[in-house]
């Protein structure tokens, strides 16, 4: 099981803040493809990904039990 967190416009577009995916090991890119296929998200190029609250790259691997957050470009301050 992988827990996916969506924020800001991603959360609004999909209507979901959290998604639980039955999935094993995969890369960030593979997970992005799953989200694009299943949840009507058009593109995730500019979206940052964090695995267990650490920023990750596309080729990083996700393990079952991980929390993976999709973070649109930030605008704090």
């Amino acid at each position, binding site marked *: 099981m992988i827990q996916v967190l969506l*924020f*800001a416009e991603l959360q609004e577009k999909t209507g979901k803040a959290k998604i639980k995916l039955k999935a094993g090991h995969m890369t960030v890119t593979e997970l992005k493809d799953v989200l694009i296929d299943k949840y009507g998200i058009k593109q995730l*190029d500019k979206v*940052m990904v*964090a695995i267990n*609250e650490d*920023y990750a790259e596309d080729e990083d691997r996700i393990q079952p039990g991980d929390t993976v957050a999709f973070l649109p*470009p930030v*605008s*704090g301050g």
Partner: protein
Amino acid sequence: MENHLFEIVEEPIQIEKVIAKVVRREAGAITTFIGTVREWTKGRRTLYLKYEAYVSMAEKMLRQVGEEVCGKWPDVKIAITHRIGELQISDTAVVVAVSAPHRKEAYAANEYAMERIKQIVPIWKKEHWEDGEMWIGNQSETVSYAEGKPIIKGDKH
């Protein structure tokens, strides 16, 4: 580093309390940056803003900003509080307080911290206008990422 130096809060920020966290006998200067909600941006009138955060990671990234600052300016002490939720015009959204023996480092460290907050801390702003609303971040009115991604690794000198 003390955790309470870096906070995401939902209630109004008490600026004096953030400043008090960095007061110490070694300091000869304290710089305070106060980020407030602006009414007009590029000719468009904002009615109010809504900030959202990935709170646990945002506090962790604020701590990282603090570590970067202390790496570059070892004599400073820094505290950052960012507010989330619905904010009205002129409300305080963020306070960065830095104390240092001398003012130059206090100014420089404060500016650096604010730049990094805008790059790596997972907080999002939604502007509500008279005629619509939009999440800010991938828009030209804020920081644009040349490579499409923020620089995650700060430079620690």
